[in-house]
């Protein structure tokens, strides 16, 4: 397998997170749509099922994917619409990783204790 440098990893991660998020989005809309069956419908049973810890860890990965995809998407826009973006794409990608961590760590600090406490 060809292993490129930062630019290729940026692309691979963008595509993986993008495909995963799009598939999650389809499932998410379908399960929230169960709200249409009303309070006596299957909605609460479904959500209780999804509140188990493996799915909550999955949700953390969805959030991490969103944050990376968002910041790397902004990097792509900068590369497309400025004269200097492509020249600094590698530095920008380290910025993306840094920004993902800056947003992600507080989210982990907020959510991980909820999972441990609620399990």
């Amino acid at each position, binding site marked *: 397998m060809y292993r490129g440098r930062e630019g290729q990893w940026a692309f691979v991660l963008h*595509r993986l997170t*993008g*495909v995963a*998020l*799009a*598939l999650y*989005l*389809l499932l998410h*809309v*379908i399960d*929230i*749509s169960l*709200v*249409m069956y*009303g*309070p006596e*419908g299957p*909605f*609460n049973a479904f*959500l209780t099922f999804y*509140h188990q810890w493996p799915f*909550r860890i999955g*949700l953390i990965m969805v*959030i991490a994917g*969103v944050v990376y995809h*968002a910041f790397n*998407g*902004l990097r*792509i*826009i900068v590369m*497309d*619409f400025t004269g200097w973006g492509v020249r600094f794409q590698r530095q920008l990608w380290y910025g993306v990783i840094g920004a993902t961590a800056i947003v992600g760590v507080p*989210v982990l600090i*907020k*959510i991980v204790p*909820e*999972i441990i406490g*609620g399990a």
Partner: protein
Amino acid sequence: MTTAPRTLKQARAIYATNTELAWWVFMRISGMLLVFLVFGHLFFNNIQIDAATIDYAYVAERLSKPWVKIYDTFLLALAMMHGVNGLRYSVEDYVRKPGRRFWTKTILFTVAGIVFVLGTMALWAFSYDEMGAAVRALQ
């Protein structure tokens, strides 16, 4: 200066490019809007509250607010178009055989259309103020 395409090959070269250019622009504009819409959505439902407390009453309460319906409509439409177009890019990159590619995309667009209609119905076709109030009265 452009001239009308004279062959199928020319038409494909011209029109496919224009449609792809429109999608290319759309991915960037919707992407910028989605950064704010999705971060807001995650903040409301994962940070302001514990996501494991979400139940029917919470969702009914949220969906009884007009601004949530409008916010979620934009979120649903932009995210679905951005996500499904991204999946289409992946299908076109990795599904090589024309027949298989056609059917993969047909199934993708069909499923996406059904899910979009479901989501829009969930947002607009029901009065959750009554149901939310009924649930709160029961609790």
